[in-house]
């Protein structure tokens, strides 16, 4: 047991962990003011444990970031009896529900660190992190995220979802293709609020020097996945069902870009020995569908996206001069002048843009946070083109377009390597 991990856990939480003892299954819920949804989610989790793991020693751990709506009390107050009528099953072991307040404000990094430290203390074999906002959560999700670890010896289970074709565009246009091209593994949801992991992987990540970077651990879930890939751990995907759209509706683009792109670019620096030697990509073992696409009509203000792209290219010229190559900037400026009908941000140019941003991030040509923020207006232009290309596309056509983008990222990987090495 490492003293350093113990030291940041509160005495009260340590006492609760000691009273729980060793466990086989650990289900964690990082929360912050989730009183509206948390009760139903805990019941679903309990039902999942009763159904799929009745003989295992299990614990539900709530890591709370200073809720003021009584979320931790609700987690502790949900009785196992509430879940029984639905499952008609009985747990053969005591199912503990414990809670700790890790800070007075939410910080995903501290929450995950708390969970990992608790998992290590309890010697949990299989752990899962669940989102406290998932309105679509089913008891089966517990099994889908834990079984591959508990029974088949996998170390990380990432989810796949049924999504609308225009949802998660930062993932389909940047995170998935770039992670796939660089790390060589086709993980659809490298950044997800739900994932399962082995105690072994949790302990290894806990010991990594990623906790004191001053970012409150934004995007730490992505760092966790990338660390698992870089560490050659056994990874698989599990199809959960429909991704809850309400959960992310309020998400703003700039914080999302800062979390995802900032974390990815930062990881590239430390993982260079890993990704620089990888060629091509392989799909991980997947239970259920690799992905599913919903096609229902969606009204989107495309005009505003294009306007914000054009404004961004014009206004941020001085910033882009530090980040992009002259040829890329010239091409961006020429497409920024195009009208709505002719506007097209080609995949090849988008990939070059992202790779040049990654290389500039590594070289710190200006403040790294500023580099990441400067990508947001350009991403809007890419989104405009993606929406236009796939407006009337079928699920297969959307998938073909995403695949083509992924292959472009893979094809231009030598360009990134060249940029990277030129900065050494």
């Amino acid at each position, binding site marked *: 047991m490492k003293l350093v991990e113990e030291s940041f856990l509160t005495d009260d939480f340590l006492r609760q962990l000691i009273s729980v003892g060793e466990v086989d299954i650990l289900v964690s819920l990082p929360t912050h003011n989730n009183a509206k949804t948390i009760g139903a989610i805990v019941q679903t989790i309990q039902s999942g444990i009763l159904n799929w793991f009745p003989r295992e020693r299990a614990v539900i751990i709530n890591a709370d970031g200073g809720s003021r709506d009584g979320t931790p009390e609700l987690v502790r107050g949900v009785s196992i009896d509430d879940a029984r009528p639905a499952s008609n099953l009985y747990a053969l072991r005591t199912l503990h529900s414990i809670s700790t307040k890790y800070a007075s404000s939410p910080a995903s990094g501290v929450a995950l660190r708390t969970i990992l430290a608790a998992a290590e203390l309890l010697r949990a074999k299989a752990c899962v992190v669940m989102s406290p906002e998932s309105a679509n959560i089913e008891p089966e999700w517990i099994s889908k995220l834990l079984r591959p670890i508990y029974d088949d010896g996998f170390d990380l289970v990432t989810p796949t979802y049924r999504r609308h074709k225009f949802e998660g565009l*930062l993932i389909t246009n940047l995170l998935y293709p770039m992670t796939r091209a660089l790390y060589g593994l086709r993980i659809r949801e490298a950044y997800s609020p739900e994932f399962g992991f082995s105690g072994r992987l949790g302990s290894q990540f806990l010991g990594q020097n990623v906790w004191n970077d001053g970012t409150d651990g934004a995007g730490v879930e992505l760092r966790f996945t990338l660390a698992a890939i870089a560490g050659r751990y056994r990874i698989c995907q599990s199809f959960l069902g429909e991704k809850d759209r309400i959960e992310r509706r309020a998400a703003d683009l700039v914080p999302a870009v800062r979390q995802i792109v900032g974390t990815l670019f930062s990881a590239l620096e430390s993982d260079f020995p890993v990704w620089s030697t990888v060629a091509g990509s392989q799909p991980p073992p997947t239970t259920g569908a690799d992905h599913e696409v919903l096609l229902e009509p969606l009204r989107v203000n495309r005009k505003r996206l294009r306007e914000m792209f054009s404004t961004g290219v014009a206004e941020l010229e001085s910033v882009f001069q530090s980040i992009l190559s002259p040829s890329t900037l010239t091409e961006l400026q020429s497409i920024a002048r195009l009208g709505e009908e002719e506007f097209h941000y080609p995949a090849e140019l988008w990939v070059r843009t992202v790779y040049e941003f990654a290389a500039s991030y590594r070289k710190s040509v200006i*403040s790294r946070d500023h580099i990441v923020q400067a990508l947001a207006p350009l991403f809007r232009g890419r989104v405009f083109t993606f929406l236009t290309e796939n407006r009337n596309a079928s699920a297969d056509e959307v998938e073909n377009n995403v695949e083509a983008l992924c292959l472009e990222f893979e094809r231009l990987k030598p360009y990134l390597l060249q940029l990277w090495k030129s900065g050494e």
Partner: protein
Amino acid sequence: MREMIISELSQALHEVARGFAHFLPRLIVMLILAFGGWVIAYVVKAVLRSILRLIKFDKLSENAGASQLLTNAALPSATEMLSRFVFWVAWLGFILLGVSVLGIPGLQEQVARFFLFLPRLFVALLILFFGLLAASFFSRAALLAAVNANVPSPRVLSLALRTLIIVFVLSIVFEELGLAEQTTLVAFGIAFGALMLGLAIAFGMGGRDLARRFLEKRFVRGKKEENEDELSPL
């Protein structure tokens, strides 16, 4: 009479010779100090230039926006400028030290004042450099935030912030150098007040339509767009 003149002349010549003999070693010391100072200053300049290149000082200066100012003024790079500045300050220091050895009344006081002024000059330069760095950082942050929030005229906002910070920094630098403190204070007060008044008038009068459009765009269109689906990036 003739003897007296010869005696006075020889005495005068003797005194000149004695004075010169007395002054010559000091002059030699001064010349040695000036030459030795030049050698030391040159070595310091070379070492400093290497260190600055090693720590990529030009990059830092570029980020601070100082490089752009230097290029516009057709001046050499920041590394070269700083190295040359240190060289001249060091050499001038040695020359003044040599001059003080000459023992010329009045000059010694000026030399002492120069040496007392040096630390303030360094502090002022440091304040100027970090001030420019801060101005560049915060103006870029404001520009990015304004562009991403779709605020009208982001470059004007960014430039206004940059100007404000630079004016503020310059006022501190002048105060540190002790140059026309009262004038600087008054000038700063007037400039700052004028800027604020100008902004108030611009927003209140000239920007009336802009403000109306901005508010309409912000609130009226917001209501209209409520019917449109939002795209989640994640």
